[in-house]
């Protein structure tokens, strides 16, 4: 009798959890995004060196048109590769678990994630347009962190914690201008890999 009641309660909890949170998020998506981000940061560093800009000595050359174009192209490539691979890995995990991907929870998750991201992205573009390259990395980290905190309601709570870390890192980066690339690599590279591995182990 009591076992049956316990099973009932467990079933209720599981159904509530499963229907209100996106639980198929694959930790490996984070690891993949992190590795791509680190590779991107390295590539950015080489682009700067090739243009004879010593990143840690003199930041001023970064604003030259040719360099900005190359870095922008690189950023777009990194973004597409990281998001694409991330989505592919999560979709494959969802399929393996036998769940549907496109549910009302998925929609809520994506809206919660992308509304702050799009506004943040446009804000960053405006900052870039005005030549404020030095605050790009801190801005990206803070907006990304806020987007994750917002989206965390609809998936594992670890995502919310990752969001706090990203936003916090962004604020620190804002206080130490000139080290944007380092903080960017830490936030989008290292943090993604660490959280990805944590979540991969926890929710396999």
């Amino acid at each position, binding site marked *: 009798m*009591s076992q049956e*009641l*316990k099973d*009932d*309660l467990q*079933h*209720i*909890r599981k*159904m*509530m959890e*499963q*229907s*209100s949170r996106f639980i198929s998020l694959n930790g490996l998506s984070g690891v993949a995004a992190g590795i791509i981000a680190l590779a991107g940061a390295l590539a950015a560093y080489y682009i700067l060196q090739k243009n004879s800009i010593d990143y840690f000595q003199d930041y001023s050359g970064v604003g030259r048109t040719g360099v900005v174009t190359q870095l922008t192209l690189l950023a777009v490539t990194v973004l597409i590769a990281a998001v694409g691979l991330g989505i592919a890995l999560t979709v494959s995990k969802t399929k393996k678990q036998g*769940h*549907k991907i496109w*549910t*009302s*929870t998925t929609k809520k998750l994506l809206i919660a994630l992308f509304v702050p991201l799009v506004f943040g992205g446009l804000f960053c573009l405006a900052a870039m347009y005005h030549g404020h390259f030095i605050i790009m990395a801190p801005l990206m980290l803070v907006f990304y962190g806020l987007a994750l905190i917002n989206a965390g309601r609809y998936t594992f709570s670890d995502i919310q914690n990752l969001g706090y870390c990203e936003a916090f890192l962004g604020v620190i980066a804002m206080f130490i201008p000139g080290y944007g690339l380092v903080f960017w690599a830490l936030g989008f590279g290292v943090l993604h890999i660490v959280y990805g591995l944590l979540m991969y182990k926890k929710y396999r």
Partner: protein
Amino acid sequence: MSLLEHLNKDFESRVRLGIMSVLVVNDWIDFLEMKDHLQVTDGNLASHINALEQKKYIEVKKEFVGKKPKTSYKATKAGKEAFEKHINALEKLLRG
């Protein structure tokens, strides 16, 4: 065993518990999505949904998306209250 009287007979089946659990934490949920969560057959799900609808625990909305009919469900206020009472009774029983 008087505590048992607080358990709602309408929620005795696992499927009905599942339906109510999904509906108290979500707004409108359509049939296919409900089926995906509960992993039961169409007929089984439909009959339990009918029973809950007759008790006025859930609200049903039928609409067309393009040419396809879509039926969605939502828990009524009475349904949420009854379900909450049921869970409280379950918990009380377990605590003994």
